[in-house]
């Protein structure tokens, strides 16, 4: 087996409250896996387990066969980058300064800025289309542009694995498609991506496989078409949907109707 990420019987609890239960999951190199599930189902917690920000209570996460919890933080950061749902920055950095922070794990405390650092930053700016904005301050950018800046920072880390927590949250339609198209292009070049999604149609359209979480358990795993059935969605989200499909793609349409004062699923 040649797995990039392997998760073995992983469990985790916050203050005695079980958040993840017995998760087993393997992600191959050059694959985009979408994590889906209702609010509080454990998507963010699972991503933080994979990124090493949280330690499993039981079980383990492996990166190329090495346990994530045992890797040195800098060693891990050279191979795996992660973007939080809400990333904030203290102080007013420019785009280029911020993207350059992605080189931190590759450089010693006192080492000089090397040509390879410069070219990694350039490549990251170029592939996210930020070259024009490189000298601008982060405060002057729109929400979509900021997302791209943080993605560029993660790319400057030159990781094999990229974790994204709701990469399209708060973005308008155009930026959503732009950002996911960009991520898809990176996957085509061999990057492994695990991304949490709320929008099931985006997850279906851009991912290779989908993993559905419900109350901390992995309840379904497979191709978008196999996982995102009307039955599964109803049992996990408690919402009735209609799935429309043709040869190339399919769409999930919630069936909600207005009854009296409340909007409820029929």
């Amino acid at each position, binding site marked *: 087996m040649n797995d990039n990420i392997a998760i073995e019987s992983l469990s985790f609890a916050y203050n005695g409250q079980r958040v993840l239960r017995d998760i087993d999951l393997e992600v191959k190199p050059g694959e985009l896996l979408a994590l889906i599930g209702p609010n509080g189902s454990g998507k963010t917690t699972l991503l933080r387990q994979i990124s090493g920000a949280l330690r499993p209570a039981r079980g383990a996460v492996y990166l190329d066969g090495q346990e994530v919890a045992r890797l040195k933080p800098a060693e891990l*950061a050279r191979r795996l980058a992660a973007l939080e749902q809400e990333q904030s920055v203290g102080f007013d950095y420019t785009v280029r300064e911020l993207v350059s922070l*992605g080189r931190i794990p590759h*450089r010693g405390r006192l080492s000089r800025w090397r040509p390879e650092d410069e070219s990694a930053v350039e490549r990251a700016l170029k592939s996210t289309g930020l070259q024009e904005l490189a000298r601008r301050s982060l405060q002057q950018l729109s929400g979509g542009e900021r997302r791209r800046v943080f993605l560029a920072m993660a790319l400057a880390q030159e990781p094999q694995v990229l974790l994204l927590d709701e990469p399209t949250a708060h973005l308008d339609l155009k930026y959503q498609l732009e950002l996911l198209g960009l991520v898809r292009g990176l996957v085509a070049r061999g990057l492994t991506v695990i991304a949490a999604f709320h929008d099931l149609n985006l997850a279906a359209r851009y991912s290779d496989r989908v993993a559905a979480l419900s109350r901390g358990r992995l309840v379904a795993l497979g191709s978008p078409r196999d996982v995102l059935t009307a039955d599964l969605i109803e049992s996990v989200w408690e919402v009735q949907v209609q799935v429309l499909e043709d040869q190339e793609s399919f769409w999930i349409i919630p069936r909600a109707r207005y009854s009296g004062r409340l909007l409820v699923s029929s």
Partner: protein
Amino acid sequence: MVIFPTLAVGLLASLAVGVAVGPVAISPGESLRIILAQLGLGGVGALDAAHRLIITQIRLPRALTGALIGLILGLSGTVMQGIFRNPLASPYLLGIASGASAGAALVIVLHWQLGGMGLPLGAFLGSTLAVISVYRLGMRAGRTSPYGLILAGIALGALFSALTSFLITLSSGTQLREIVFWLMGGLGRSNWHYLRLLTPVALGGAALVFALSRDLNALALGETGARHLGIEPEQLRRFLLALVTLLTGAAVAISGTIGFVGLITPHALRLIVGPDHRLLLPATALAGAAFLVLSDTLARTLLSPVELPVGIITAFVGAPFFLYLLVSSRPEGSI
């Protein structure tokens, strides 16, 4: 960058002014000849013995002490603002100043001389005790939480201030004057002995802080953001807080609590060199040093022969500047 030569020249010029200016007029040329002679360089010529004494025993150690304390306050302020991701943080945020004041007041009221080391020792121990208490009380679930630390700092600061006020009410007239002058901060107690103790602390501490500038940059992304770049935020914060306590504690032990240098310097320099700590830290070190030496020269000469506490000058310059920054700063997110 043109800013570093400018700052370096500015610091040298401020030192020259600090040595040459005072109630007794000694020309810069003569000052330089005296210093060179003292270093065993250059022909002595006819040097005025009194002038020589003033330069070597009073003004030179005082200017150098001012430079080192300014350097410490500038660096410590930058580090605290970096740790708390907030440009309103100062080196005194966690009770160093109030702890040192209580320690110093106690030593003054109890007449502990300890061979001239009583006051600095009392202040240093007071500041260390305050920060350790704040640190212990501000922990949340085994980790340092910025909110917990700040709140504990406010509470313990109030407690130590109350202790200082209590000691003031117990003190005699001369003691009262001594305590009040200590509280306002000044470089009047500088001497070669203190300088010899302060120099390795200041320069060693500065070297360590410079070596961590990359890590401070990562901390700007917050707890999880830093960890995703391979930096352990908890260890880093602990080490930096200990370093700031040692540095600021040593500075305050000699000069008392001088305000605004540690708050204003990083803020102003960030506007010029940007937030990257690899540039910001050396810039604030140089600027803090020059600012304090110049402020002290003003404090000595404005109402000569009366000497003002330098804290009054730094506040007079610093507070309006700070208010200007506050009013003119960008509306959202940048503060």
